[in-house]
């Protein structure tokens, strides 16, 4: 084959003869070694060649005055006028920045140059500034187009990640994780070497039916050099709950506030006699800070130790990490241990075996979320203690002011309420690479995973919550899964043409079992199932799901300038019935590296200019098993008799949700100071998987159907500035901003509502997902102190029932971005990261009067709030006599804009600590330092999941979620 090509090339060369013939050798200026594959072009023509294995070239120039351009990846371009010379030897200088970093794309690796789609790569050092055990927190604000919502400070909780908006109504939206080239898997954040976010179908198309939410590819560490390297890291710090914008009233504030309740709606005078009868001044003798008693200063510690190295035949990386957080709420915490061993063996020059294992165990303790509710409701006028200073039961005490007779602190006593999850899991990866010919190889990647987790919950009769009595429940799950990906990979060069590709088969299967048992009637001091004496309930089930796929990809590049990638994937999933089981996901993408064109050579202003475009399809199927079948559930009983209930009607037509994605982008750097990356995308998701309302009179109220479409379109901009890069003082800054526009279409006249109590969201033609649909609020009437609304005729009214509904914005985030900067001076370094969100609308601006149900504690009014007292007052809070908890209007909506300072780290590095090879870095780091927002009464990072009781973007009327933490950490990082 090669011979023929050479003959062909000779033939071509012969045709071009009769001009000036130039030859020579290209070498590296650094090590004087020859450079093979360097490109030699006559400037202003298409005439060109590449150097051979010994760095030699020969070229026919049109005339003696031609200018030769020598270029090669990783080296500075060299321009030399021929000037009639026949021998030109060139020494090329290495470029400072490494353009040819390998980017891991999942099924294949590419150099940055070769990439034809929108991807973002983050290296580990940019990732681990935040101290956390989950990668999601670390990503916040760091990648354009990736939205991370961290709505809970519960240790171990995982934030929500959404890439390029939300494209589904009911199907899950999270990205697909790929660890070390295989779908799924586990890792410790410290094990991560690079993280690649695949954002458009040019690259995610390869993952077909699982890739609607984007793909995050994680590569764990491997040895870089033969030197054995040890690394030890320790992060130790403390945490505080962030209640900054959600303070509750103290005793006196609440007393003065309740006095307003006794303001007569007719005379506007406070009836102090009635007030003092109802609430005597003696309540002021008690001022309990309920939150203060239930929350504390938490601690966080993380230790990591690794060693790695390699020889000619093998390479290894071993690590162990331990994470331990005591939450800010008493009795909550999270511990995790992770052990990893990565080993690669080059058995022969054609056979490579990789064997990686990751073992992880964790235990997490939490409290009932309704305890947060009671802590917020509890009154400062009530003392949790009896006269002996012991905690007392409110249900058995007299003179309690709180409306629900619940003393939430009882649950925090030792062993009174325990809720924990213990889990252990193992992933084993085994890969074989076989080099069949120089251009063809076979690659088999396999993973088996097993995990089990066990939850334990118990509460004693001593605990007061709304649920009565003692209770114990345990449940256990056991999951095994396997995946195999077997591919032929080929790569072939001929001249300036490079063709590569892969073709293969992938199969996944998961089997899970779960069981649970509960009971009541626990004896004093014992908390296991064995001792429960009554009300036994048991449950158990298993499931299987499977998927198999054909995958293929072809890459072509010409002269390192023009790149085309096409992929095609066929998926079959057990989620759907036979007829709709198979789906196809094609994609095509291309790029033009303008920067490698001869006419750009020597352009010092714009470097590395690249244009990209991609088109492709991805899908989504994760709606749970057997949603297309007619089902009779056997999970209940009637008077202990076997009972079957029709729970699902069949829908054999159910099929994949598919997104067609289009992306164009460019990247370049300006004067070596500013790296710019721009992307524009337009994604249309069709056949949305909708858990749709049916007319209930047919016997079923809901069904999974494919219905309607959604458009997500927007742009992303990332800027990386090297403001000061020479000298001792260095300053870099990164900035990213993205915009996403979301619209539903293909709905016709159909309108779908979802609601949580009276709060509604509407899905209809031309609306954004999650559009609020609530009554039109028109402020507090200055004359009467009553709430006003707008009715159907556009007139003001006091009557809530006759108020009109309006579509009033969506909690989907249109604008968001991040900013980070690092300044270093010698061994000192100061880094800061922040992120912002702009333009979303949340529900739940907490007007104090709407909260203060008699008698509960209330949120402190914000500085902007004015309480109405007499005619003429321009107020935000009306007369309490008109307060109602059943009002759902636009007055409760608030812009969710915020800017958060995520992290500030100051560090100092000792270059030669004890020994010349050792490096020690000490750092002080603060996470979640401060928030700038107008949202009052809650953290502006609000749950956006559809799996919650609350609607996406709804702040509970009572802010009963675990507050986010502020974290102050001391870090040590030692390498030797």
């Amino acid at each position, binding site marked *: 084959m090669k011979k023929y090509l050479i003959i062909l090339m000779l033939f071509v060369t012969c045709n071009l003869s009769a001009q000036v013939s130039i030859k020579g050798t290209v070498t590296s200026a650094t090590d004087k070694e020859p450079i093979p594959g360097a490109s030699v072009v006559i400037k202003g023509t298409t005439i060109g060649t590449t150097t051979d294995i010994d760095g030699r070239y020969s070229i026919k120039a049109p005339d003696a005055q031609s200018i030769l351009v020598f270029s090669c990846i990783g080296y500075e371009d060299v321009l030399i006028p021929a000037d009639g010379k026949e021998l030109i030897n060139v020494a090329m200088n290495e470029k400072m920045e490494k353009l040819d970093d390998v980017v891991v794309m999942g099924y294949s690796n590419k150099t940055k140059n070769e990439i034809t789609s929108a991807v973002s790569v983050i290296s580990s050092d940019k990732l681990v500034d935040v101290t956390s055990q989950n990668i999601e927190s670390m990503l916040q604000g760091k990648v354009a187009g990736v939205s991370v919502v961290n709505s809970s400070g519960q240790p171990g909780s995982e934030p929500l990640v959404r890439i390029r908006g939300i494209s589904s109504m009911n199907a899950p939206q999270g990205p697909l994780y790929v660890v070390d080239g295989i779908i799924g898997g586990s890792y410790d954040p410290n094990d991560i070497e690079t993280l690649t976010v695949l954002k458009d179908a040019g690259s995610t198309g390869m993952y077909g039916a699982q890739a609607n939410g984007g793909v995050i590819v994680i590569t764990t560490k491997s040895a870089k050099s033969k030197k054995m390297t040890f690394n030890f890291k320790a992060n130790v710090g403390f945490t505080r709950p962030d209640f900054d914008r959600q303070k509750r009233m103290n005793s006196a504030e609440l007393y003065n506030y309740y006095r307003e309740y006794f303001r007569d709606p007719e005379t506007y005078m406070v009836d102090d006699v009635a007030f003092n009868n109802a609430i005597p001044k003696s309540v002021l003798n008690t001022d309990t800070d309920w939150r203060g008693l239930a929350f504390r200063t938490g601690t966080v510690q993380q230790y990591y130790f690794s060693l790695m190295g390699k020889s000619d035949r093998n390479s290894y990386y071993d690590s162990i990490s331990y994470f331990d957080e005591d939450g800010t709420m008493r009795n909550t915490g999270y511990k995790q241990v992770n052990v990893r061993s990565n080993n690669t063996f080059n058995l022969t020059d054609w056979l490579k075996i990789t064997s990686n294992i990751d073992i992880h165990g964790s235990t997490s303790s939490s409290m009932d979320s309704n305890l947060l509710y009671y802590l917020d409701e509890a009154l400062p006028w009530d003392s949790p203690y009896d006269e002996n200073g012991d905690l007392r039961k409110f249900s058995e005490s007299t003179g309690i002011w709180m409306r*629900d007779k619940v003393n939430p602190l009882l649950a925090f006593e030792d062993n009174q309420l325990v809720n924990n999850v213990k889990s252990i899991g193992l992933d084993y990866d085994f890969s074989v690479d076989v080099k069949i010919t120089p251009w063809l190889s076979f690659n088999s990647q396999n993973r088996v995973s097993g995990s089990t987790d066990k939850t334990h919950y118990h509460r004693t009769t001593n605990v007061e919550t709304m649920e009565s009595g003692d209770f114990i429940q345990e449940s256990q799950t056991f999951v095994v899964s396997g995946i195999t990906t077997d591919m032929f990979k080929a790569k072939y060069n001929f001249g300036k043409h490079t063709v590569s590709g892969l073709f293969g088969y992938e199969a996944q299967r998961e089997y899970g079992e779960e069981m649970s048992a509960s009971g009541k009637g626990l004896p004093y001091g014992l908390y296991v199932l064995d001792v429960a004496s009554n009300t036994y309930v048991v449950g158990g089930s298993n499931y299987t799901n499977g998927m198999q796929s054909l995958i293929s990809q072809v890459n072509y590049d010409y002269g390192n300038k023009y790149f085309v990638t096409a992929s095609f994937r066929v998926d079959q999933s057990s989620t759907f019935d036979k007829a709709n089981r198979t789906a196809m996901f094609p994609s095509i993408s291309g790029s033009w590296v303008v920067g490698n064109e001869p006419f750009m050579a020597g352009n010092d202003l714009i470097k590395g200019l690249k244009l990209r475009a991609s088109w492709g399809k991805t899908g989504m199927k994760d709606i749970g098993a057997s949603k297309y079948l007619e089902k009779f559930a056997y999970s209940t009983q009637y008077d202990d008799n076997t009972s079957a209930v029709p729970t699902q009607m069949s829908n054999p037509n159910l099929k994949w949700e598919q997104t067609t994605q289009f992306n164009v982008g460019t990247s370049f750097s300006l004067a070596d100071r500013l790296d710019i990356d721009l992307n524009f995308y337009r994604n249309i998701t069709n056949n949305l998987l909708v858990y749709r309302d049916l007319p209930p009179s047919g*016997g079923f109220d809901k069904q999974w159907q494919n219905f309607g479409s959604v458009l997500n379109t927007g742009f992303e901009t990332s800027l990386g500035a090297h403001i000061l890069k020479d000298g001792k003082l260095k300053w870099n800054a990164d900035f990213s901003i993205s915009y996403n526009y979301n619209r539903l279409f293909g709905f016709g006249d159909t*309108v779908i509502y979802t609601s949580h109590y009276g709060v509604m969201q509407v899905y209809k033609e031309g609306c954004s997902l999650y559009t609020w649909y609530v009554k039109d609020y028109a402020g507090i009437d200055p004359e009467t102190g009553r709430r006003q609304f707008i009715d159907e005729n556009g007139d003001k009214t006091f009557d809530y029932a006759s108020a009109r509904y309006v579509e009033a914005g969506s909690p989907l985030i249109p604008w968001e971005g991040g900013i980070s900067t690092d300044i270093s001076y010698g061994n000192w370094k100061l880094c800061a990261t922040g992120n912002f969100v702009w333009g979303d609308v949340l529900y739940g601006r907490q007007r104090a009067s709407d909260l203060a149900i008699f008698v509960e504690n209330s949120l402190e009014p914000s500085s902007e709030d004015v309480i109405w007292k007499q005619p003429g007052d321009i107020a935000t809070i009306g007369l309490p006599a008109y307060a109602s908890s059943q009002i759902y209007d636009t007055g409760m909506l608030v812009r969710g804009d915020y800017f958060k300072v995520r992290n500030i780290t100051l560090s100092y590095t000792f270059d030669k600590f004890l020994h010349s090879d050792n490096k020690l870095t000490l750092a002080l780091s603060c996470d979640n330092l401060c928030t700038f927002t107008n949202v009052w009464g809650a953290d502006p990072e609000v749950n956006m999941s559809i799996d919650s009781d609350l609607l996406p973007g709804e702040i509970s009327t009572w802010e009963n979620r675990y507050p986010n933490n502020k974290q102050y950490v001391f870090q040590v990082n030692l390498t030797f």
Partner: protein
Amino acid sequence: MKKINCILSFLILAAGLLSFTGCNLDIAPSNSLTGDQMSESPTGLEDIINGCYTIFKDYQEDQESNDWYLRQYYQMSDFSSDDVTYGHETEDNLNMIFRYPERTPALDNITTFWINSYKLIYAANVALNVADRAEEKTDLVKHIEGEALFLKAFAMHNLVRLYAKPYTQADVDTDPGIIIRESMTDTDNKGRASLKDTYDYIVNCLLEAETDMEDIDVSERDSKGFASIGAVRALLSRVYLYMGEWDKSIEYSTKVIDSGDYTLETTDDIPDYITDTKDASETIWCIIMNQTDDKQEGSIASMIMTEGDGCWGEEGYSPSILSDMGIGTDMEKVDVRFRFVQDPVIKNGLTLYPCSKFSGQDGSKTSSSPVMFRLSEMYFNRAEAYAHEGDEPDALDDINTVRAQRIDPSAIEGSTVEDFLYKTSDVNSSTTILDLVLKEKRIEFAFEAQRFFDLRRNGMDIIRNYWGFHILTYSVGQAVSKAPGLDVDQVVTKASYSRLVFPIPSQEVNNNPSCVQNEGY
């Protein structure tokens, strides 16, 4: 060597490719049967009919956590009446049951009841379909067929009396009833049948059930938790009363009373009746909820029983019914039905008397097996029919029969039961015999989903002349020393007020355009 690895590689891939078509991706759920599997199950018919009963007591998939059939059944009927004080405003949609003008078709609780009713009707239709295909019509099959017909009729009657105008107060040929689902394949969108057609359909189901269940004895289904011929006749007695068919109602009430299968609980038994309804002699049919079905903070009791142990204690006996019961008089001592009235608590300036009628089974404050039919109702149905026919003595007899079992004269020295029974003289120019029947029924059936329908059926206004959050402007600071005047908004509600009929849930109307909405929504 290279050849070997080459061949090996291809083999692995080929194996994968071959299995691409062979890999089994048809996976059945582990805790449900599919429709095909169900028809092969030898016990399918019994499983399905038992499943129908679970719909009364279970939370259904995807529904708001506290909404389930019976809770909504009691909430929608009793909280609409003048028997209950609404003592604490809550986020629960039961708010709008009390506040008629704020009722909307989108409310979760109203929707849930509708959904579960039709789910029950569908399940009953599946049972009828399976019974129909049974090779041999054994007594068991006939009994189950009767149960299915009965359950369908019961669910339909509950729907029609909540979501349509009262039969006796409407133009039955033109006013809409509810959507009739004749079989499990009758599921396409369709409109509401007229009131007359709806009631006729219900009656026909019941008559067919009566024929099915007559003279058969099936030990497997012998439980008060399952419908029996007694339950079928009791429902006929009720339905005919709602239709104004006095003779028929009397006929079926009498059939049940004379069957000898049931006896009234006595004065001694009644206070404990609620702790064991399924074994009580007065019970005709109840929904058995065992220990594991205890709904705690989502139970019926949670709304009306004294606060604590899963109860919110936000609703209680209204001053209106307490006054009819004779609070503050000797009746408080002798009428054992006062045992269900709990010690008052002050809440938001209101004096609330909680009710224990759904508490005490298995020692749990929130557990009971709610009674759908008990013998006492047959006396009251018959008394009301007699009263309408002008048969005053028989009407008095019937209510006194019940009352005699509710009076314990020993509390007052020297008195006898007779002293506390109604006399002919109690019927006078200001109190008709019907008034008397309804007053006594109100006392007997407080919180048992009767009062609202008694008023509606007889075209009576609803007068809630007491403070509570049903009055839209009520607030704690308001003077509560005297009862609100009749001129206060929401105190008097005319029988003709359109929002006393619940709205058809928007989920139905929006997705089934042939279904008309009720007036006033």
